[in-house]
């Protein structure tokens, strides 16, 4: 099964996982707006860059080519 969302549903997806967006556009914890969400390699991530969530401690990923290459190596077909 494949589950996807389009740009219009980004807010809903983030909210479902307890995340919000701060004034600068970065993803933060809903219950602690000073705590920015980090990608697996420690980068902060903006809502614009947000590409989804993958299993394994709920990992937030960017919508960019290097991330997609990593996903292609790590996600099962």
């Amino acid at each position, binding site marked *: 099964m494949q589950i*996807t969302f389009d740009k219009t549903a980004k*807010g809903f997806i983030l909210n479902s996982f307890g995340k919000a967006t701060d004034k600068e556009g970065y993803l933060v914890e809903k219950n602690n707006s000073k705590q920015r969400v980090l990608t697996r390699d420690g980068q902060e991530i903006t809502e614009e860059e947000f590409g*989804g969530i*993958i299993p394994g401690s709920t990992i937030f990923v960017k919508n960019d*080519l290097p*991330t997609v290459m990593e996903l292609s190596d790590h996600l099962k077909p």
Partner: protein
Amino acid sequence: MQIIFQAFSNNKNITVNGPVIIINLNALDKNQIIGIQKIIRYAVDKDRIPLLQDDTQKLLEDFKQVDRESVSQNLIAYFKGKIPAIDIEALRQSIYVKVVSDRGGDIKKLKWDITARYGNRGRNICNLYSAGYFTSQIQPMYDEMLSQSDFSPSDFNIAYDRIVNESPYAVFINREMSNQVAEKEVRDRINTALNYGIRYLNIHGIGEENVEKIVYILEKLKSDFPLPQEIKRQGNVIVVKIQF
């Protein structure tokens, strides 16, 4: 089966189109939203299903397909262990960028993504691959160096690093160029470099024929650019750094 979440203003909450179910979040009531949130959290956490934006999913599927093709597989297999692992990553992505470009697709963001992650080195790898230099220059350079009895991988690493780090200041002399065309190419590149305040150029050549061509060019340039030239030659691989 594929489930797509959207938040549109129409009043249909669920659309079923074959194996694709589109859920319009705007048409759901509060309890339904809470239920859906529980389901998607469960899907990611327990069923280990990725939850990707549609653009990311499309890019992933397209990348996987290109990455599996033999052009990509063969080139990556060749360079694995010969160049740094991080360059292999940039090269895999550069192959994808070239395929998208050849299809007439927009590669601006893809190239930006590579530069953002790997810096100028990533951008140079992308440009070198796109210009065909990995197969026309770097691969033959390795093979040529390997054929030398005194070959050391570090010699290749130095030559490769110079190409990748300094590719914007490089000109590659190839078999198809006549002496005159090669000389014109070098002079044009020098003029371009001077316009941007760049004071040097690396001239690369592989094979006896191209080495002779470079010797011819250096002779021609000598009167205009009398500054010392740095010449590195190993067998039939030559790199000349000229300053001006």
